[in-house]
């Protein structure tokens, strides 16, 4: 009985003294990584919006800005304006941003084009949306799962997302 009490005591001590601080620090680290990822994503979409094109240089810079403490899976969706749909008439503006339908181009296609041509041009009025999610399990998640499996908090994810309308036509 005495032996069992000691074991329980030490387990509880280790939990409180070791795991809880690690969990807390890991949570803060995840928060910092979250902010850094959001800044990187926002900068990237701002760059693309201003330049009117996705360049290899911007893409490389974006990947370098993502926090190195985790591995991320970025996702890009480019929604160009479909020129064939929209109001047309002889005496009014031929195209008004916001009226036309848009179709979507996704990550793999964009990265393919980027690799082959080095640049993916866009038009004013297109929309670009970029999101990232971490693919690894963070320390915080691991600790949380140890502490209380019942809450299902293992779904904690570092993610960031930003969307912008393209402001100019790419070269």
């Amino acid at each position, binding site marked *: 009985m005495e032996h069992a009490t000691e074991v329980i005591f030490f387990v*509880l001590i280790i939990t409180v003294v070791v795991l809880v601080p690690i969990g807390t620090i890991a949570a803060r680290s995840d928060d910092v990584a979250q902010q850094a990822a959001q800044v990187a994503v926002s900068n990237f979409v701002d760059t693309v919006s201003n330049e009117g094109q996705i360049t290899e240089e911007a893409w490389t810079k974006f990947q370098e800005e993502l926090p190195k403490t985790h591995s991320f899976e970025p996702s890009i969706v480019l929604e160009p304006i479909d020129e064939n749909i929209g109001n047309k008439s002889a005496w009014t503006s031929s195209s008004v941003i916001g009226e036309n339908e848009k179709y979507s181009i996704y990550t793999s296609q964009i990265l393919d084009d980027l690799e082959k041509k080095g640049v993916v041009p866009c038009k004013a009025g297109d929309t670009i949306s970029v999101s990232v999610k971490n693919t690894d399990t963070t320390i915080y998640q691991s600790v949380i799962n140890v502490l209380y499996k019942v809450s299902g908090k293992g779904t904690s994810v570092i993610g960031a997302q*930003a969307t912008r309308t393209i402001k100019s036509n790419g070269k």
Partner: protein
Amino acid sequence: MNYKKMSIIFLIMIIPISVVLSEYVHNQIDTLTLQTQYKTMLEDSTYDAILAYEMNTMSATVAKGEDNKRYVLASVNTFFNSLATNMGVSGTNSIDLRLYVPAILFTSYDGYYIYSPTKMPKVATDDIGLGATDDNGNIYYLREGNDSTVVKDSSSGTVDTSKATTDMSNAKISYDYMLKPYIYYSASYSDSNKYNLVVNYSLDNHITVYGQIKDASGKFQPFTKSGYLIDYNSITDVINKLKIKKIKRTGFNSSGNPIQVVSDANTEYVEIDGDTAYNYINDYNYTEAPPTANANNYFGTRDGQSYSFDVVTGKRYQTGDQIIEDSVNQGFITSLKYKGQEITDSDALKYYIKAYYFSKWIDENLGGIVKASDINEEIDKNAIVPDDGEDNGINDQIKLSFTSDDKIFDIYDNSDNLINNPDSETSIFTNHRKSVIQNSILYSLNSAISTYSTNMDLLTENRLPIFSQSDWEKILGNIGMTVFLQGIPCGTKTFNDYAIVTSANNNQFINKNNLYFTKSIGGPETTSYNDYHKIDCPAVVTSWFDTIETANPRADISAQFKYDAREVEVKTYSDDDDFWYKKEDGKYYKGNPGGLLYEDKTAEVKNNLYYYDKDSTIYYDSDWNIVNDYTLIGGSREAFEKKLKEIKVYETQEVMTAYLYDHKNTGCYECIVSNNYIPVVKFDEDGEMRRTGLDTDEKLVMEIPDVGGNKWVYDDGTEYTGTVSNRTSDDELNKRKKAWYTYIAKYRNNLHNANTYANR
């Protein structure tokens, strides 16, 4: 019990409590994070919508007269598309997002649109999809309880009247989102003994007034007037210089009517004095001589000739604005003084003269009679939203403004003292104008959101949020969009918020924050290259404004800057001189501090600036092309080389960001890019430009008039009585005032003429 057992018991008690508390705190943090994300998405999407509006309205393909409504609808669509993409529900699911948007407010220069669900009767159709009508053309609506829209057989023309009715009161109602008709910032005023009128306000001092006013004989006379309201006695040196066209009578035709010709425009003008000009400009029927019934006589005679009246039609030949424009265009008026500053630009002259006569008429005819409390009871006084709970809050201010006896248009009192300056932020006119606009917007938004809440079958009740003072300053300060997003589940709460985004780049409205000055247009390749600056930037060279008459200095509103101002080859600054950054090798080169080395050009020489690499004798022109073979125009190669200072290559320098605008001038780093500068002038609450200085702690102070002289005050109005350094000189202040008064007037005159389509 030993300490171990006590510790175990303690830990067993504490751990679950801390786990639960931690979970609770984490949920709260997640909720806050989600709220922040939604708020960011909302603001980003609203920003995209305004951006789309700017791009559409400033596009080169805009057709004159095109309906602004189309651009507003396109902006709303852009907002929903952007929000859906942000939330990851783009495509057909984006339509579901509308359920969380009770209203979108789009404020324009003289009115606003609201996009919200509206009660609409469901129209019935025939079997080929056309709207069903009866023989008299009355539309058939679906009856309540009937879901099928097809009620008419197109071939036989028979209508199933059990499913459809022409009586709208029995029609099936649906709530569909639509852009409601444009609402002007207007208010009606009446005093049964004196007048009955409507005033359309705008975001600045432009008003349109129309209605009836009782004349001296007791009859109500109709009138319509439109213009900018200013403190007109600040304008001098113009009153007696207007001229009107002279119309000659050359004889009579066979019917006995006079034949008249408009004389040569360059010679046949006659000067009219101040009072006569006032009458000609403000009264379309004005004549200097009373009309008679005899067809051989004609109106407005002088020296046997007819002035300004077409005797055949009996109508005025020139309107008031035409007299003013003609007088300026013909060079009869070349300058005037506004607040002591000489104005010589023709567009600015037209603005001030029109504003002078308009403001004088308003002051003399409406100033003494139109009270704020005369505002029409039915429309305006009952339209106040519920109390916001704040003492002297916005709603209290609106109520006070509508119930006081202040004379809204009384600019000068009987002794010609300025008592109500329309340019002042605290004047009776400005406060009332803002109250009218706020009241109208609040009434319409409250109605829209209440309708939405009552009829959209939602789980939560939606209400209009209370706007803060800074929110109203944004809404009333420029064209913009306000979007409400309510009812989205958000962790432990429900998301309810709104975003206000204003347009900094548009060609409909100008305020003091979007006017920029440069000496001349041109990029770095020109010799007179200059940055754009704000009027209060210390880097503005006020000697530019010595030549306003020849239009060398240039002012542009931000709409003329390309909205995608982009970073260009950066130019760095050091303590002693400028450097040029060469992208190809990433090095910094120092240019000749004297600027021009050569004025003459040879075939190989493209420009006048030269650089060379210190490690070799390679010469570059300013396009970074190697110049191998050049011919000196006079002098020798040795003399040329003596002129070149040794250029050092610096590997590292502090990099600055410059933004290239459409006219190829970059923006000043201090006042435009970083907004980190000490202004040399500031505007007080009356809209007057005042000099600034620094106190002993190098805090900014501004000089304002006081009884017996001037005094210095801080931003919050606190007086400073110590020593002031870095005072702006009189010369600096006057030159900036002259430039400011000129270009604001010029742009207001041109924008008003350019934006002639409906719903500006």
